[in-house]
């Protein structure tokens, strides 16, 4: 049993820690490249969303290297993500690969049941430990990334360096205390280099989670904006997803209710994925004096398409500029850059001349 899983930002580090802790060998899928995207696109339905294609590419490349157990997530709809596993399984079987697929439904009981299958000889104590370490790594990575947001606009190089260092150290760390030390160290370094009189543009990033978290797919959006001197606040991290959707923590459910109440005048019901949250966050962030909002999502993503068609009205009412960026396998770098530059110019002049209504 050689386990593999798709890439999504730092997800691979977390899952690697989890499965190794459960006593299983893992194979990290090769990093996403043009080839991954091409392989995935070739065997996917034409109009399916980009995450489907890229994760299928991940699986193919991992199977080529000898993986035989694929771990992926399920869902209850209406977003298509919940059905990825079933269709990808069919495609890979028709391609002649031999493998087993473990689909983890977003339900804590099912997660435990599936993982008992993977870790059948492990004691509860060991399983608990594996989960703790993986959880600690996930939280550590997200904490560091969040702290880096404020440093990046004026210390891009340093921020990159610190990030790479931290990622590698966390990946190699074996105990929770070690992980805590890395976080403490990195956060200290970040704090030491911060300058307080700097007031960069602040942009909120809303939209679909996969495109938001996977730098290869979003063409390193957070970094690119950082080099342009912009502070980018992601509205979603991996840990939010796990705590909100899997563990269903009270604070996240409350936060969701809050966002739903904000979005209600524009969108009266949950439409799957993060469509409702995109609208809610846009309103919340306009009240928190952000300079602009960027919405990212894969082409044909159903929930975000609805949000995208509603956001112009929200943008007008709340007087906050919103830029929607749609990604697919054809996305070119230059086109996105041009749009980003134009958007940043707009935000800068708004900041300089005051927020004129309708600008």
């Amino acid at each position, binding site marked *: 049993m050689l386990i593999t899983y798709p890439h999504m930002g730092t997800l691979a580090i977390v899952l690697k820690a989890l499965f190794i802790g459960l006593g299983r060998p893992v194979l990290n899928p090769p990093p996403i490249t043009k080839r991954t995207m091409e392989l995935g696109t070739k065997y996917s339905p034409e109009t399916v969303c980009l995450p489907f294609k890229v994760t299928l590419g991940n699986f193919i490349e991992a199977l080529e290297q000898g993986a035989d157990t694929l771990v992926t997530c399920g869902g209850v709809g209406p977003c298509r993500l919940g059905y990825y596993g*079933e269709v990808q399984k069919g495609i890979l079987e028709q391609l002649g690969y031999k493998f087993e697929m473990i689909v983890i439904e977003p339900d804590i009981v099912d997660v435990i049941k599936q993982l008992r299958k993977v870790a059948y000889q492990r004691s509860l104590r060991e399983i608990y430990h594996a989960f703790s370490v993986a959880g600690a790594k996930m939280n550590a990575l997200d904490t560091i990334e969040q702290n880096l947001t404020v440093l990046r606009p004026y210390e891009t190089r340093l921020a990159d360096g610190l990030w790479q260092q931290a990622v590698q150290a966390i990946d190699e760390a074996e105990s929770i205390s070690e992980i805590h030390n890395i976080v403490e160290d990195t956060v200290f370094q970040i704090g030491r280099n911060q300058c307080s009189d700097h007031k960069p543009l602040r942009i909120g990033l809303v939209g679909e989670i996969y495109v938001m978290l996977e730098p290869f797919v979003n063409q390193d959006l957070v970094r690119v904006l950082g080099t342009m001197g912009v502070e980018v606040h992601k509205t979603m991290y991996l840990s939010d997803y796990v705590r909100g959707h899997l563990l269903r923590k009270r604070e996240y459910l409350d936060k969701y209710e809050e966002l739903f109440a904000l979005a209600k005048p524009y969108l009266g019901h949950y439409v799957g994925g993060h469509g409702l949250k995109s609208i809610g966050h846009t309103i919340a962030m306009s009240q928190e004096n952000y300079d602009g909002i960027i919405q990212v999502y894969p082409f044909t993503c159903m929930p975000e398409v609805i949000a995208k*068609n*509603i956001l112009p009205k929200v943008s007008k009412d709340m007087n906050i500029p919103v830029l929607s960026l749609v990604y697919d396998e054809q996305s070119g770098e230059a086109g996105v850059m041009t749009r980003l530059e134009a958007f940043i110019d707009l935000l800068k002049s708004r900041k300089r001349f005051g927020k004129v209504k309708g600008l």
Partner: protein
Amino acid sequence: MGIRVGIPRCLLFYQYGAIWEKFLGELGAEVLVSGDTTRQIMDAGGELDEVCLPVKVAFGHVHELADKVDYLFLPRMISVAEGQYTCPKIIGMSDLLRTNMAGLPAIIDVDVNLRQKKRNLYKAINEIGKIFNKGPLASFYAWHKAKQNQRKVTVAALAGRRVALIGHPYIIHDRQISMDVIKRLHKLNFNVFTPEMIASRDAEQAAKAIGKRIFWSYSHHMAGAALAYMKPGKLVDGIIFMTSFSCGPDAITAEIVSQHAHSNGLPYMLLTVDEHTAEAGFVTRIEAFTDMLNRRCALC
């Protein structure tokens, strides 16, 4: 004069229109249904980005009705079966309209959500009744009477080859969107079988062959019906899956149907339409597919 209520001839109208019309009539409303889709109606929705063609067409229909009625009837059909949803775009339809179209009459977009409890249907009926000043009993009675009006699909078996045309009713039965594909197939001497000719119980049964239950009700039925047509006994000679570009659920459903058609050795074609689809290319593809079916069947 009673309250005038408009029902756009789009999306779920093709499934529930007859019931809705009767129901509103029973409640004392004067019901106005928009006409067949035309080229103008289709173009009116062009201001929306990236949505599928049926949603754009729905915009056009609402446009048609907007200044003629007091209310628009577009119930928010969130779920029609336990554990399933309809489609995100159908769920968000009334919000898309409100934020993108000026001068709209009030929209009756009562939530219909049977995902957890079937009883919620009566909640919705009651809420609609209230708009027309009807008590719960009168509303339920109106619904009860309207339900008898459900369209029965009759299947007439004719000579000739048989092809299954799988697609959302609002695509294959809208003659503008589907480019009148059913009539074209009839002209080519093919009998056309659509998903609604399969009883939901049979579709449900056939859909068990799919590993995970599809969580979009209509796609679930479509896939189930397609699988029912594929059953041994050769109910049909080939399968055409018709979808509109950027339809989310269909991207998945079509792939599942295609995989099963492949393993059952049944010819399968995916027809994608959008507002730019040209007639000539469309006709060529249908003819090529039917020619192939004719030749294939002549051999066996």
